[in-house]
Each structure stands twice: as structure tokens, then as C-alpha cells.
């Protein structure tokens, strides 16, 4: 029964709706809301990234860069130039989308894992530029970002952002599930399964890979912008290599080709450092160990492995 629930699209969504609506009853203070909101923000990015990495089998090591670029475009335009929040967000989307497109188009024509290398380079360059041009970005110390404004109404406070992020999470999961179970989605999965087979049935595989890369980059940019408004403060770390790795790890840990796995992965990787902070110096050691062991013994990621185990037991 649990396995069936995990399998059907509506089952998973229903569980998530339940969790999102009931969770506030368990959260005692704003700090907990903050953690949950951060999980939600990462989860949305990872749902998009999972389409690229888990379903289409491409590797990006630079999505932190897109997140950070969205954050700083929003930050700079709203804080320094007084742009309306929504417009600044769209500017970020445009910038990141174009960058993603221009980078991906020539690279994705090649077969092999060149996208990984290109995104590695791109992400690090973005974070170095943000860090160096401190006259406008505030440099390594970061910069403040005003709250999100919509038609004169300021969005401020954990409680409101909780519902906004919760709603956006459900929306993005719905969108992702729709894509997967469609001709476009099957074409994408076929690219991963056998790119040549996809080509001979008429799929323009380069077009699809580029499109998906841009979509996932835009997901990251939007969430970067929203996070900037929510947190009120951004640093170049958000665009850094470690954040990019963190995002891919969330995909792999939760389960590639599993949209709900993406949410689980985001939750675990956000909570783990919190849980481990008591260990202080040993935090890194334990973290690295958990990462290695989980993936060695559950290479498909948590959700697919557990789902398979439940299916096996149900037989």
C-alpha cells in the first residue's frame, strides 16, 4: 500500500500537500520555519536539476552559479537601482537563460560528459566575478537585499514565505511530473537510455538537451532571486562550487529519476549539517562518510531503492 502510494503521481502529491499543511503545527519557532523554507527552496531547484541529471542523464556541476546569478541580479537591481522585484526576477531569468543557452548549444552537440566540465567552468567563473566586482556586489562580504515587493505590498516574514515556497514546490513538482509523463519527457528519458535510438525515431536530441538545461537553469535562477528577498542578504558562496556540488548531491542522494526523491534529497542535505553541527570538527568527516556509504550501498538513491525494497516485500 505504501509502495503504491509512492508510485502514483497523485499519491506522492497528496502526501506532500498533507505534510506542507500540517507541518506548521509542529514548528515551534521561526528558526524551524527558516530551515524548512531553505529545504523548500533547494527542493525546487533540485526538482528542476533532477530532470536534467536524473531523467535526461546529463551532468551539471555549475547550477550554483545560476542560483547565485539569479540572486545577485535581483539583489543589484532592487537594492542599487530600485527595480520592482518581479522585473528584477525576470531580468535574472533572461540573463541566466541566455547564458545557459549560449553555453549549452555548442557543448551538447558533443557526446560524452563535456557538459559537466563546461558547467564546472561556468559556475566557478560566475562566483569569482561576483566575488571580485565588489563595487557592485559587495564582494566576499555579501550585500543586503530589500524584501520582495508586489504591487506595493511587502512580503516579509517566515510564515508568509513558508506558504509561498510550499505552493511553489507543489507547482514545480506538478510541472515536472507532467513533463516526465509526456512525449517530451519520454524523448528526454530516451536520450539518457540510448541517444542514438532517440535520434532515429525523430527526436532532435540536441534541442531537447539544451531546452532542458535552460529550464533547469531558470528554475535555479528564480529560486536564487526569491531566496535573496527572503533571506535579505546574499553572499558569493551561493554561486560557488560547493553549492553546485550540494545541489547535484541532493539529486543523486534522493534518487535520480525520482521527483519526490529530489525533495527528500534536499531535506536530508539541508538537515544533515544542522544535525552534525554538534560534532564540530568531525562534521566534515561524518558528512563525507555518510555520502560515500549511502551511494555505495544505494547507488540509485534513497527513494528508488526504498521503493524497490517495498515492492519486493509486497510480492
Amino acid at each position, binding site marked *: 500500500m505504501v509502495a503504491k502510494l509512492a508510485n502514483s503521481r497523485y499519491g506522492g502529491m497528496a502526501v506532500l500537500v498533507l505534510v506542507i499543511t500540517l507541518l506548521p503545527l509542529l514548528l515551534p519557532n521561526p528558526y524551524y520555519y527558516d530551515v524548512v523554507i531553505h529545504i523548500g527552496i533547494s527542493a525546487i531547484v533540485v526538482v528542476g536539476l533532477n530532470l536534467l541529471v536524473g531523467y535526461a542523464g546529463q551532468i551539471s556541476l555549475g547550477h550554483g552559479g545560476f542560483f547565485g546569478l539569479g540572486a545577485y541580479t535581483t539583489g543589484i537591481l532592487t537594492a542599487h537601482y530600485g527595480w520592482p522585484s518581479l522585473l528584477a526576477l525576470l531580468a535574472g531569468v533572461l540573463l541566466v537563460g541566455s547564458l545557459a543557452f549560449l*553555453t549549452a548549444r555548442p557543448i551538447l552537440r558533443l557526446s560524452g560528459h563535456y557538459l559537466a566540465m563546461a558547467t564546472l567552468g561556468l559556475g566557478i567563473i560566475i562566483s569569482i566575478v561576483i566575488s571580485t566586482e565588489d563595487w557592485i556586489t559587495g564582494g566576499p562580504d555579501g550585500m543586503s537585499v530589500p524584501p520582495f515587493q508586489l504591487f506595493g505590498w511587502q512580503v516579509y516574514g517566515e510564515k508568509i514565505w513558508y506558504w509561498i515556497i510550499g505552493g511553489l514546490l507543489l507547482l514545480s513538482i506538478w510541472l515536472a511530473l507532467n513533463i516526465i509523463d509526456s512525449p517530451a519527457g519520454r524523448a528526454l528519458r530516451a536520450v539518457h537510455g540510448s541517444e542514438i535510438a532517440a535520434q532515429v525515431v525523430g527526436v532532435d536530441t540536441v534541442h531537447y538537451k539544451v531546452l532542458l538545461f535552460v529550464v533547469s537553469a531558470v528554475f535555479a535562477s528564480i529560486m536564487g532571486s526569491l531566496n535573496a528577498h527572503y533571506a535579505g542578504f546574499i553572499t558569493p558562496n551561493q554561486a560557488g562550487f560547493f553549492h553546485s556540488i550540494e545541489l547535484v548531491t541532493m539529486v543523486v542522494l534522493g534518487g535520480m529519476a525520482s521527483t519526490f526523491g529530489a525533495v527528500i534529497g534536499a531535506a536530508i542535505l539541508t538537515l544533515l549539517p544542522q544535525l552534525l553541527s554538534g560534532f564540530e570538527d568531525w562534521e566534515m568527516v561524518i558528512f563525507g562518510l555518510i555520502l560515500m556509504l549511502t551511494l*555505495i550501498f544505494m547507488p540509485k538513491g534513497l527513494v528508488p531503492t526504498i521503493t524497490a525494497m517495498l515492492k519486493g516485500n509486497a510480492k
Partner: protein
Amino acid sequence: MFAEFLQYVFSGVTIGSTYALVGLGFAIIYNASHVINFAQGEFVMIGSMAAVFLSAAGIPMPLAILCAVALTILVGLALEKFAVEPAKNAEVVTIIIITIGASIFLRGLAQVIWDKEFHALPPFSGEAPFIIAGATILPQSLWVLGVTLVIVVALGWFFNRTLMGKAILATACNADAARMMGINTRFILLIAFGLSAMLGAIAGIIIAPITTTSYDVGVMLGLKGFVAAVLGGLGSAVGAIVGGLILGIAEAMAAGYISSNYKDAVPFVIILLILFFLPSGLFGARGTERV
């Protein structure tokens, strides 16, 4: 004018040799298994940090260096045996994350066992710099270049003249065929990791007197070594060396003539340029996929 240029060339070639050795490590492992080992940089860190602490404990420097290299090799072998081999059937992305997990784990251990400070090894033969055509070069730089050269020659002999070396190359070309010829491909991968660990450790030890070392020195070095390998053509040993040297010189030139703030961006701009214009790298194989 020329002296300044020469200065940049010297420092570029020095750090470039480190990139070359790290890149070589990437290339060897990639050749044997198509795995990109993101823990490569940690071999550099472990080699240099171990040497620092062993010699600080009173062990004479040459012995400390030997032990540090041996320790790193053990770490490399353990990494292959316990982290990579169990996961060999997983997707490439998963294996990459496992090596990243390993690098985090090793960095964490280094932080706990040693510390978070910067450390330097004493230069091997004195600190007084030489002056050549108006540019200064440290004696340690000459050590770096010399050791790198010796290693390159030794590896050349190893791969072309010894049975083990040729077995590694054969596995790189076609693992299935190699297996059928009786070559134990799992063992080959173990050797590849051990070799790469050795290269990383030596690279770390010879450069530590110049650049100092710390628990997280491996991250950037690893990434830049990776860029060197890609520049040279992932899978080409010669390419990794040439790539490393070019990278080092380009970095030094950019820092000197353009802006030292963007020095760290140079390798990554280079990797983008390579991928746009010459994806298989300088010496990489341009093959067609057989259907």
C-alpha cells in the same frame, strides 16, 4: 620588460608542473576506468601535510617524505578498493559524487588529525634565489621542475617498456579485450589509483616549500589539475603534462599582465574555450562512436 616576462614564465612553469602532475593523476585514472576522481586534489594535500607533521614529529625529512608518499598511496588504494570498486556499476554521476564524498571525508580527517593552519616545508636546498636574465627563480622551483621531469621520463619508461605499464594502457583502450587476454582489470584500476596518489603526493611535497599547504589546499589544486587534463585531452598523459604547463604559464601571465584578482578564473576560462573550440583537447583522440 623581458625580465618581468621571464619572471612570469618561471613562476608559471613552477606551478604548472604541479598542475601537470595532478592532471597526470586524473588522466591515468580516467584512462583505466573513465572515472573522474574528484578526490585527486586530496592526494596532494595528504602528501604535503603528512610530510609536514612527520618531520615536525622529529623524523628526518627524507624519511618523512617517503612515509608521506607511502601513506598517500595507501589512501589511494583504499579509495579504489572501498569506494570506487563497490560502485563500479553505478551511473557516472553517482561515482563522481562518491569521489566528492571521499574528498570531503579526507579533508575532514585532515582537519581533525592535523589542523586548519597553513604550514610550510623547508626548501630542499636553501632559499637564496638565482638570478637569470634579470628574473629570480627559487632553488625550490628547480627542484619542482627537475622532479617533474624525472617522473615524466620514469612514467614514459613504465608505460612503454614494462609489462604492467602496457597492461594499463591496454585496459585503457579496451577493458573487455584486456580482461579476455588475462589482464586483471580490477587490479589495474587499483594500480592506477596508487600511481595517481603517488603523483599527487609528490606534487604536493615539492611545491609546499613555495606555496605552503593546509587541509583544504586540495580543492582548487584538484580542479585546476582536472582542467589541465582536459586541456591536454582527457586520457592523454603527455597532454596532461603539456596542459598543466600551459595552464600555469597562462595563470601567471594573466595575474601579471591583466589582473591578479582574476588569476583563479583563468583555468576555467581556458576550459570553456577548449570545450567550445577543441573539445577533445590538444592531444585527445578524435574517435567516432561505433553503432
